[in-house]
């Protein structure tokens, strides 16, 4: 396969990736992936990123004072509208 033809094939495959990923299809069985080291590496990297991101789910507690500030701001708004 010429370099141009291979790149075209990579372009076509990579254009389909957003739909393929997460679709439930076995991407590893795609003929292009089986023959293209470059796209195999790309797919492996994207999988690694998605997997690493799933470990980053943050559980962050805002400070207790934040609710006091929100309460205060709500009261101010209500006071303004009552006066208005």
């Amino acid at each position: 396969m010429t370099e141009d033809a291979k790149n075209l094939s990579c372009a076509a495959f990579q254009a389909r990736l957003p739909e393929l990923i997460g679709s439930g299809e076995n991407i590893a069985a795609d003929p292009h992936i089986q023959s293209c080291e470059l796209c195999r590496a790309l797919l492996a990297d994207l999988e690694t990123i998605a997997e690493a991101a799933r470990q980053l789910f943050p559980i962050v507690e805002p400070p207790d004072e934040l609710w006091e500030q929100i309460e205060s701001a709500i009261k101010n708004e209500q006071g303004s509208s009552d006066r208005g």
Partner: protein
Amino acid sequence: MPHSRFPTQLPDPAPPGLAPQAPAAGTPASAPISYSAPFTRAVLPNPIEADALAGAQAGDHQAFAQLYSLHKRRIYSLCLRMVSNIAEAEDLTQEAFLQLHRKIATFRGDSAFSTWLHRLAINVVLMHLRKKGLPVISLDEAMEPAPEERPGRSFGAPDLTLAGTIDRLALERAIDNLPAGYRLIFVLHDIEGYEHNEIASMLDCSIGNSKSQLHKARLKLRDALRIYPRQEARR
């Protein structure tokens, strides 16, 4: 090659009351972000939220406080992830809940309340980014970063790959450096676990657009993560 490790269907976010255990109340604002395994969503609606929502819509202040308690972690975490600054995240969380208080009577249940609230918070964050002079004018523009911000495709000779592992701090830094539009989609889908149909609803875009933007975000992260080790190796 093993079967794809991409989830075919990511777990949906848990109702806030059922979310993973958070640090104890009173955790200092400067405390480091803690992480847990991906969460799971209960299938049934959260009755505590439904009661609180009905009460808050009727003007019950305690019910609104309950809604805040249920959703504060998700909204604060989203804000913190988007601005990477504790003081700004607190301000944005406050503004989001103030807007919620003003608008809660208009919620009609066309979507899940958490989706509606997230959308409201996202708009607050994007408005803030615009005021800071970042190139985010609207949700539409956030969804379409400038051409120079687009990731390159992966054609030509193979280059460095991630070798199956990613340093968490490097990933954190790369996410922080993503353009706002990409970061938003990536955070919502890959970190928070929202599905494309939920993101499309929050951002008023098509499911295809959400998939496309997520893919570009991952490509951009891949580019960044392949650069960091080389930069650090030079030091």
